[in-house]
């Protein structure tokens, strides 16, 4: 395999509350420390545009990339790149939400236009919210809107009344007088998962890459949580880098279930709920043409050998192995 005997790797990340630790870990030399420990070189690259970072990963430009569980399925896995969710960093617990200027509940969206990034987790969140309210997507109009402009259009354009978005944009949107949150991801806990995904072949050939990344991640987790001055300083730096302040960042963290303990992440990965979630996700993807071969087009492997979809086309794998090493202090 081409992935053999590599010692230098490139990892991409983009700005989001659950991924800011990667930037901090790179800036502080934590990644370098762990890479050195395993005799590797790891370059951590920040990319403005989230989708572009995943596309680059899918095209082979990076060995690993941060993304959500849904995007991991619909972009690299569908694109034939066998990917492994190395670290489950967090799940959105209110970080994604539906906000409206006029409607009071999800049912009030009937017939309206909703602005969101189409085919993203926002779209998924809306679909799940509608399902809960006994509606379907055809009951309203989805307007694809770039995430960079959602805040601007919601706060300033009268014809944009309802948006679905994520933090920190969600906080900006909610700060608008008269804005109501109709639904958020805390009502579907554990379904929008943020993770570090690496190429399965690369990982198989270089397990040390997984160890180094996992080690760096949990060291950063330990550093940034709590009220110690070092933790405050770390979170302040992350806040600044994502364009907000400590209070804003902490507010975002509050609506994120960050697995700062590796053991919690292992438990989450092993729970049977993960299979249910992925089933929801793949059904949504198939409904929206992202899995053109049907729900079963891509095989998903879960810990403990459970599989969803086509077993001969396993492209997305969840594993607790590396997080477990961290939990056991074996790195």
């Amino acid at each position: 395999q081409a992935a053999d005997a590599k010692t230098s790797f490139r990892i991409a990340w983009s700005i989001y509350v659950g991924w800011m630790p990667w930037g901090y870990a790179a800036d502080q030399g934590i990644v370098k420390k762990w890479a050195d420990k395993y005799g590797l070189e790891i370059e951590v690259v920040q990319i403005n545009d989230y989708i572009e970072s995943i596309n680059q990963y899918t095209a082979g430009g990076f060995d690993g990339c941060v993304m959500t569980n849904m995007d991991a399925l619909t972009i690299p896995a569908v694109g034939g790149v066998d990917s492994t969710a190395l670290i489950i960093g967090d799940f959105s617990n209110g970080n994604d939400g539906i906000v409206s200027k006029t409607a009071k509940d999800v049912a009030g969206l009937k017939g309206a236009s909703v602005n969101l990034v189409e085919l993203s987790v926002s779209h998924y969140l809306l679909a799940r919210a509608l399902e809960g309210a006994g509606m379907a997507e055809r009951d309203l109009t989805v307007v694809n809107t770039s995430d960079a402009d959602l805040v601007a259009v919601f706060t300033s354009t009268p014809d944009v009344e309802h948006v679905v978005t994520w933090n920190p944009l969600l906080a900006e949107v909610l700060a608008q007088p008269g804005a109501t949150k109709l639904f958020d991801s805390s009502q579907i806990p554990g379904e929008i998962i943020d993770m570090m995904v690496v190429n399965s072949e690369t990982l198989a050939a270089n397990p040390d890459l997984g160890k180094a990344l996992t080690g760096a991640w949990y060291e950063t987790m330990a550093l940034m949580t709590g009220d110690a001055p070092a933790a405050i300083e770390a979170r302040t730096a992350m806040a600044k880098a994502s364009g907000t302040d400590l209070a804003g960042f902490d507010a975002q963290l509050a609506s994120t279930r960050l697995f700062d303990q590796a053991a919690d992440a292992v438990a989450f990965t092993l729970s049977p709920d993960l299979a249910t979630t992925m089933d929801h996700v793949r059904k949504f993807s198939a409904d929206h043409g992202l899995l053109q071969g049907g729900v079963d087009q891509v095989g998903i492997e879960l810990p403990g050998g459970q599989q969803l979809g086509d077993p001969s086309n396993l492209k997305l794998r969840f594993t607790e192995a590396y997080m477990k090493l961290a939990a056991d202090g074996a790195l």
Partner: protein
Amino acid sequence: MATARRFINRRPQRGSGLLLAAAPFVALILLYLIGSDMRLSANPGDKLLPAPSSFVEAISALALQADPRSGNYLFWTDTAASLLRLGLGVAIAALLGLVFGLAIGLFPYAGALLDPLMAVLSMIPPLAILPILFILFGLGELAKVVLIVIGIAPFLIRDVAFRARELPEELLIKAQTLGASSWQILLRVAGPMILPRLIGGIRLALGPAWLFLIAGEAIAATEGLGYRIFLVRRFLAMDVILPYVAWITLLAFLMDLALARWSRARFAWAAGR
């Protein structure tokens, strides 16, 4: 005798000229096919350089089958939506170009008032002020049309103004000796004489117009060629993106050709210029 002639004096024959013209295209296609084959044999799921058959499939799915969600034939609704926006934007910009350009170029007072403003406006990158546009014009069709107008109108205005100043002074003087008022000169002399140049300006502006259309559609839309490209970019669907790019290129090419033809037929007198 012809063998030793300078390269600058050597012209290809008709047939070999056509062959030469086709060569780079054939080379590009071959290059693509080889690249695609290489990537696909390494990873059959690869989406970056799909096989030609995938293009056919993807486009026939969009063009010949109704979308189950909306019941539309997406390829055609995308095309219609984009062409409408483009047409409106270009038409409005052309009108502004004609009116303001003529005024600035012909009337020294109008020039003194608006020339520096236009010079500055034409330097503002429209993409940087997108948020302001949305705020002023909303997120609907209007904003997309306005983006095109803002993107190309300053150029057209300045181009027309420049050309109006280039009109042979003799013809303007002569009109005055024929008793024409400023308004009549505008209407019957400068206006008609500038039209072929306006068409030329529009042809130059079509490229940027497409650019702004795509940028506008990338930001907020429910249909359109640019919308589709940026939407399917989410899952790297090059089997849709590449045919769409080819289609846009073809449309742009046909528009350019049509304008050139029409201008030559309608303004035959301006041909030699």
